[in-house]
Each structure stands twice: as structure tokens, then as C-alpha cells.
């Protein structure tokens, strides 16, 4: 009797823990509002397999929902196992295409892809996620930063909020004399790598650290995951961090306006301002291989272009050995590029592709054989 009651009590706690735990899970694709896309040529392999970058996972779940709606009986299974694993599984022939935060590396990886596909592999930058410089300073909602100042904050050269360098960009605003607390990602992440690449590219050498998957700025306190840094910034007065825009929005954090390399007016983060930067990005790949020169994104100089975004690729074969696979990959990517799928992206924290750039992707997708 005593034992039973004990078990019941433990069960109750366990059950409530499960319920509470469930609340913390990632936001999944909203089932509602998914509509079929007209004009996509369905057919081919019914179940595609793909794996890789977790940064594009939420976009992929939305694409897959639209794909299933558009092509009845066809689906794609995307496993967010990390970019490195995704590329390896694609090169090993276990998956039909890879999702990756970075393009195939020149040399060995490109050669292996050539072998796997018996044709060149293409890097298609399909999903862009803007990265916000989010901060928590009481009474300041419209902070303005530029590349150099941001870099000097994140490498510890600027230590207080009322530093002359920040004050010069924010005239007339009341900045506290408090020390700046930098919150960084303690786990390895593509966000950290891309943000540091931005700091390197946009600061004229002021950052002075290596851009890697781990934070090398040498200041601040680490927190785990995007949610971790967003929470830490929310709970720590006078702190600043870099995080995917969706986490900053959900956490109600203020996001800095960035003066881009063109030196014009400060640009707030929005789908339009990120789209403006994407439209001006340079492609370093040949033909339909749309590998990006990311420095041209980070150094975007067009007025109204927000320069900090994480680009994630789909890595595909230009000519699949199996025609069935090729037509299914084409159908999936065409669905993903359709307005129906693109307009669902902002609520998941990504930006819809601007028309000009989308045209290049469409051309490439249609050329997959």
C-alpha cells in the first residue's frame, strides 16, 4: 500500500514533468495555412532523403508540408544531423541531397561529390536566416552600431555602453555608464561562425580574431544554444548578443540597427532589408553552381541592406544517375521556391528570397537532370 502510493506520487511528478518538458520543445511547422502549389511537375521517387544543417530545419519542415500538399503521395525526410554529417551522408550516397551551412569545400569534397554524382554538384543557397545583434539596455530601443564598433564590442576593446565610439553613432541617446556584458554561444554553431565572418569582413581588421564555429572574441559569458543566449540577454541588464532574429523577436529583445559598409543610414532588420543584401550578393560558383561569396553579403553597401545573415545551401547533383530522383528533387525545390512556401518563412525566422535572386535559383533547379 505504502509502496503503491509512492509509485503513484512519483508517477504524478513524472507526468507533470513530461507535460512541462513538452512546453519547451521547438516550434514545429504549423499545419494550418499550407496550400498546394500550382504548376509544379510532380512525380519521381516518392520518398526523398536529405540531412544536414539544423539552422534550416524549421524552413525545411514548412517546405515539406507544402511539398506533401502539392505532390500527393510524395514526401521528403529531412534529418537535422548537422552540416558536416549532412555533407558526408550525401557524399556517401545515403541521401539524395544535403543541407549545409557552408558550400562544398574546394578540393577533396568537390572531387568526392563529382564521383558520387558522376557530374558536378551544385551548391544552391535556398534558405537565409538573418542574425540579430540583440541587446538589453534599459531605456534604449534604437541602438545603432556599425561593423567596426560591433567587432570591438565583441572582442572586448569597447567595455562600457557610454564609450565614445558607441556614443558617436547614437547621438542624443542616454547610454548608461555600465559595463557591457557579452553573451556568446558556448556550443559550436554556424551562427557563431557566420557572425564572426561578418565581424572580420566588416570591421577593416578591427576584430582581429579567427572566424570559427566557436566564439573567439575572448570576452563575456557563454550560454548554450540560441535560446540560451536569448534568455541570458533578457535576464542580464546591459548585455548584448548575436542570435537568429526569430529568437530575439520571441524573447522581446531589442535589435540593433546596423550601418552597413556603404556607410548610409542605419538599417533595421526586416525581410526587405535582408532581401536587399541578398540581391546584391556575388556568386563565386560557375554557371548554376550558386556558391556565394559571403564577404559580398557582409560588406553589402546598398542603402537599406542589412548585412548579417546565415546562408544555408542545398547541395544537389547537377545530373542524377537516377532520373526518378532527379524529377523528385526538382519538384521539391520548385515547391520550396514557390510563393506559397516562401511566404511562410518569416514566421519561422527566415527571409523570403528576393525575386531577382529567386530567378537564378529557379533556373538552376530547372537545369537539374
Amino acid at each position, binding site marked *: 500500500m505504502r*509502496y503503491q502510493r*509512492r509509485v503513484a*506520487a*512519483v508517477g504524478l*511528478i*513524472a507526468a507533470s*514533468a513530461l507535460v*512541462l*518538458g513538452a512546453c*519547451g520543445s521547438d516550434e514545429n511547422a504549423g499545419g494550418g495555412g499550407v496550400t498546394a502549389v500550382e504548376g509544379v511537375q510532380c512525380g519521381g521517387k516518392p520518398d526523398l532523403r536529405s540531412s544536414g544543417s539544423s539552422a534550416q530545419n524549421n524552413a525545411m519542415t514548412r517546405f515539406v508540408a507544402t511539398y506533401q500538399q502539392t505532390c500527393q503521395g510524395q514526401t521528403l525526410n529531412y534529418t537535422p544531423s*548537422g552540416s*558536416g*554529417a549532412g555533407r*558526408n551522408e550525401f557524399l556517401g550516397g545515403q541521401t539524395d541531397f544535403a543541407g549545409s551551412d557552408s558550400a562544398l569545400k574546394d578540393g577533396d569534397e568537390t572531387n568526392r561529390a563529382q564521383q558520387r554524382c558522376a557530374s558536378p554538384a551544385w551548391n544552391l543557397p535556398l534558405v537565409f536566416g538573418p542574425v540579430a545583434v540583440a541587446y538589453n539596455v534599459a531605456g534604449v530601443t534604437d541602438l545603432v552600431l556599425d561593423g567596426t564598433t560591433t567587432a570591438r564590442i565583441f572582442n572586448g576593446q569597447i567595455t562600457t555602453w557610454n564609450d565614445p565610439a558607441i556614443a558617436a553613432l547614437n547621438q542624443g541617446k542616454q547610454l548608461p555608464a555600465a*559595463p557591457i*556584458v*557579452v553573451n*556568446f554561444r*558556448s*556550443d*559550436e554553431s554556424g551562427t557563431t561562425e557566420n557572425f564572426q565572418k561578418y565581424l572580420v569582413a566588416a570591421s577593416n581588421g578591427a576584430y582581429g580574431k579567427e572566424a*570559427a*564555429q*566557436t*566564439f573567439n*572574441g*575572448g*570576452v*563575456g*559569458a*557563454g*550560454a*548554450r544554444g540560441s535560446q*540560451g543566449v536569448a*534568455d*541570458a540577454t533578457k*535576464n*542580464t541588464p546591459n*548585455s548584448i548578443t548575436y542570435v537568429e532574429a526569430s529568437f530575439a523577436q520571441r524573447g522581446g529583445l531589442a535589435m540593433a540597427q546596423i550601418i552597413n559598409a556603404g556607410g548610409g543610414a542605419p538599417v533595421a532588420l526586416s525581410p526587405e532589408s535582408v532581401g536587399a543584401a541578398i540581391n546584391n550578393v556575388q556568386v563565386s560558383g560557375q554557371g548554376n553552381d550558386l556558391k556565394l561569396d559571403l564577404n559580398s553579403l557582409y560588406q553589402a553597401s546598398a542603402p537599406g541592406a542589412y548585412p548579417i545573415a546565415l546562408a544555408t545551401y542545398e547541395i544537389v547533383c547537377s545530373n542524377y544517375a537516377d532520373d526518378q530522383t532527379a524529377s523528385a528533387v526538382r519538384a521539391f525545390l520548385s515547391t520550396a521556391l514557390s510563393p506559397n512556401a516562401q511566404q511562410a518563412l518569416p514566421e519561422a525566422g527566415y527571409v523570403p528570397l528576393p525575386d531577382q535572386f529567386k530567378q537564378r535559383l529557379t533556373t538552376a533547379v530547372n537545369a537539374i537532370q
Partner: protein
Amino acid sequence: MTERTTEQAPSRSSQDESSAAGSSTIDTVTEPDPARGRSQGSPIQGRGERIFRGLTSGSGLLVVAAVAAIGLFLLVQAVPSLLANNANFFTSPVFDTRDAANLNFGIRDLLVVTLLSSLFALAIAMPISLGIALFLTQYTPKRVSRPFAYIIDLLAAVPSIIYGLWGIAVLAPALLPIAEWLSGNLGWFFLFAPGNLPVLTGTIFTGGVVLAVMILPIITAVTREVFSQTPRFHIEAAQALGATRWEVIRMAVLPYGRSGYIAGSMLGLGRALGETIAVLIVIRAATTPSGFSLFDGGYTFASLIASAASEFSQPLPTGAYIAAGLVLFVLTFVVNAIARVVAGGKVNG
């Protein structure tokens, strides 16, 4: 509580037959003897006897074999990485495995953070557990003590991820004034010196308090069980000599339960050393190594491994983390050995 004690008994029996909580252990071990006497002349009972004996010794050997296999696995996986390591494994404070061709990893900082957080947790939890156990066994009637004991035991059933979230979201802000006072007034003492984090939340201090709450039920459960087994005549003898309640506790209960209390504390320390998710969430990562202050941040062995687990793809960097796991494994053994020495290995009853 009896079911918990018997659960633990088999694993302890091989190490410490005479520990206080081991009274039930001895029962289990010696039980076959009278049965053997009875079974003579009955072949069916004799076979049952042999099967039961085989099962029990098999279970015992299985545990030993499993521990040995874990140790062997850790060693085999760790050695190639240790050979490829370019830093001193024991004294280097950096743990850099990003480049498989140039591994630089050492455990100094992990050891400092692990020990500091666990010992701080133990320092908080031990006196509180002792108080709770004495209160429940000596000061309250059974009617009151039983529901009380349930509540304490329920603390052990809360998942550690919940402790982690609670620790960083609720406890850390609540502890901030205390942390500020300590660092402001006792900053000259090395434990409260300014740390390597720019903030006073999410430090080893915060993590230690969370760990203390987590190990409290384990220590309390064992201690309470031992105290409640204090022989009646010891207590009555003390009372007959005119001892007050406090003197009874000091002269009869505490000496009898001392080794059980220490054994329980070591179980708690074992959990604190190996705690992963709560520590990972609560203690913030720092950019410089710890300087032995409670207001430092960093990784413990377990939290570092958990933090990097999603990136394990190449054998050499993975081996580096397994080497860290091996040290934690050895550390736990050392802690147990020390506990045995401190406890004296016998019940003073």
C-alpha cells in the same frame, strides 16, 4: 524507504559489507545458509538452491564485469587521442579539439570546476541533510515524519533538466543579492574573489546551490534510514543516565549513524560530480580558466561532454572527450575510496 535501501545493497555489498545501511545487505548474503541446511535430502530444493545461488552470484559478477568493461572501453577509446595530444593532459586549462590534426586538450579547468561545484554543493547539503534526518527520526512523531519524508524523496524524482531551468530562471536572480554581498564584502577570500564571468548569475556558486538541492534527498534518505535503526537500548540507556534529547543524539544516534551519514554523503557527491544537464544549463561558459573562485564559470567533465556530444563525428576529437570521461570515472573511484577511509569501514554500534 526500505525498498531503496535494498536496491542499493547489492552494489555496495561487494565494497562495504559492514556499512551501516548494509544491515539488510548482510541478510541477503547470509540468507542461503539456513536454507541449505533445510534442503539436504530434497533434490528439487537443492537444485533451486543452486539456481538461486548461480543467479545471485551471476548478478554480482555482472556488475563487476560491466564496470570493468566501461573502464576498458574508456581507456581503449582515449589512448589514441591522448597520444595525439599536443598539450599536457593534466595541467593544460584549454580544451581545443576543433582541429583533429592538432589536438590541444587538458583537464585542469574541468577538474577545478567539477570539484569546486560538487564540494560546495556537499558543504551546503550535508548539514541540512543531517538536520532533516535528525528532525524526522528524533523530533517528530511517525505520523508527521512520513509525509515529510515523501516530500523530500520527491525532490529526487524531479528531472535534472527541470532543476537546470529552475536554477537559471528562478534561483539565479534570487541568489544575485547574496552573491553581490559576498563578492563585495568577502572578495579578499579566494572563494569569493571576482570570477572570470562578467556576471554573478550562472556561476559555480549558483550551480553549487542547484546541485545541493539535487543531492539533498539522497543524503537525507540514507542518513534517515541509518538514524532510525539506532538500537533502542542505546537510546534508553542514555536516557536512563539522565541525558537530554541533544545528549542522546550526540552520544547514541550520531556515533551509530556516522559512517552511514558519510556513505550517504558520498553517494550524493557522486551524483553531483556526474550531474550533466542541470550544470550545463546553469553554469555559464567562460573565456578564461577558473581561478578557484565560486564566481567563476566553466565546464565540468560531464557538462563539457554533453555540450560537445552533438559534434562527435571524428574519432580523435571524440577520444579527447572520452579521456575526460575516463578521468571522471577514476575521480568517482577515488572519492569512494576516500569515503571508505573516512567512514572507518565499520559501524560504531
